């Protein structure tokens, strides 16, 4: 098995601690950083698909995302100057009035693993704060809004509307959360919806690509 294949296998197996060493070995073997990153993003896609299919669970997905993050640390200095594998900046947060962050955190990790630079605004984020963050960051290609509670679903809708009405352009908006159905998502005016973290990463790349 080549070092590149080992990186992919260990990433998919959630062996987070082994990934950075293997990434270094893959570099030493002569692979370029861009190819390794691309392979890792593919592997995260595999993990996301398995999660959506119920073949792996959240801990395994979290460990893979941890491995990805550790591997990217090794690659980052070599990717300076902009990597074509990167898909831009994603602003993410849980909408105003909602303090729950597990779904948002999972989506953030998976979106990062798919090739986005993630700016996580945390929980209880007002529409104004989302807009400020879009203005304050370069190359924002995606804004991701999360809501867990039925009581905060209206905030999801008003936030998307405010972002869309801000006049800012160049990005897509994606929404999600436990009570959010495709039908409700459509009423918010968002460009996309995903039912779980794995498919959120796929949808994000599709919207931006």
């Amino acid at each position: 098995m080549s070092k590149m294949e080992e990186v992919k296998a260990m990433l998919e197996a959630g062996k987070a601690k082994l990934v950075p060493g293997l990434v270094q070995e893959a570099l030493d073997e002569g692979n370029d950083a861009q190819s390794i990153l691309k392979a890792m993003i593919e592997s995260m896609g595999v993990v996301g698909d398995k999660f959506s299919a119920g073949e792996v669970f959240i801990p395994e997905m979290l460990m893979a995302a941890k491995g990805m993050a550790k591997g990217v640390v090794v690659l980052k200095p070599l990717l300076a100057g902009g990597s074509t594998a990167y898909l831009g900046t994603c602003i993410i947060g849980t909408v105003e009035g909602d303090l729950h962050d597990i779904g948002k955190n999972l989506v953030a990790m998976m979106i990062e693993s798919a090739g986005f630079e993630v700016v996580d605004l945390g929980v209880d984020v007002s529409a104004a704060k989302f807009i400020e963050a879009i203005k304050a960051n370069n190359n924002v290609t995606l804004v991701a809004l999360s809501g867990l509670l039925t009581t905060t679903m209206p905030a999801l809708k008003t936030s998307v509307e405010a972002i869309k009405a801000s006049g800012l352009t160049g990005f897509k908006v994606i929404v999600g959360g436990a009570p959010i159905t495709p039908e409700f998502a459509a009423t918010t005016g968002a460009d996309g919806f995903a039912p779980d973290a794995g498919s959120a990463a796929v949808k994000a790349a599709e919207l931006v690509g």
Partner: protein
Amino acid sequence: MNQRENFQVMLDGGKPEFIPSYVELYNLGLMGTNNTDMPWQGGVDPFGVNWIATKEGTIPEPNKFLFDDIADWEKYVHFPDIDTLGIEHVAQIELPNFNREEQIVNVFSVCGLFERLAAFMGFENALCSLIEDPESCQEFFEAFADYKIACHNRFIDVYQPDVITYFDDLATANGLFMSPTVYRNVIKPSHKRIVEAVTSRGVIFAQHTCGKCQEIIEDYVELGARIWNAAQISNDLEGILEKYKGRLIVEGGWDTSGPVSYINASTEAVIAEAERCAKEYGQKGNYIFTPVLINENGNSLIVGDPRLAPMAEAWHKIDKL
């Protein structure tokens, strides 16, 4: 039959005279667990975790963790002395409201094994720990089970409940947080001790788990749980009601994430949901109707709601069996 007699028939697997509604069946003892595990109105619990009250429940303050590495749990977790928690005092406030002759006394015990681990170290850390360092997790769960057992014994002493409802949410809307194997290897051994300690004192064990957790319902039954609370419709409720009649009563059935639980759901929609629950689950005979109406102030059972009375009236008129 009164609520108590009817409940006993359901427990025994017989045909009840009526399908009970949660609010009419139980006298709830909530305040003991306020002191032992989670302050209902928010604030710091006896372990030092700060809880924040939201409209739909109280949660640990986000991103404020007691420790990051489960191997360190013994350095940070200090178990309180049960005698100092004031359980007797809060019980004295609740006990006079109970009608033991006709209703069932159900005492809540919130923040079970997994929820407590997540309260200490956050969901992501807790979930990773289950597969990264299962041995330390097991050690923690064993120690925490001792605490829960001590709390339950005290609840039983002072409240003399018929039922203890133990809360541990292990699932999302789509499935378990962790694989069934991880649950069985890492959490279940301590969970088993908690169930046995309650049932060995003649008290009925009710397991609360939200989300799609049907893969471990068999485990719950095997452990000795007689009631599954907050059964959500993402599970095969009709199949579960059929399979476990006489062994497990299903409490729930309300579409907690659907349009009927949006804050602006109409009274008609709420009545229609009660009718659906009656039709789809009531006839199985081991079902407790548990409406969850959410309004702008939170859960209607706690904050009140004008839709409750017409819904209850409609519920009583529906032919359920």
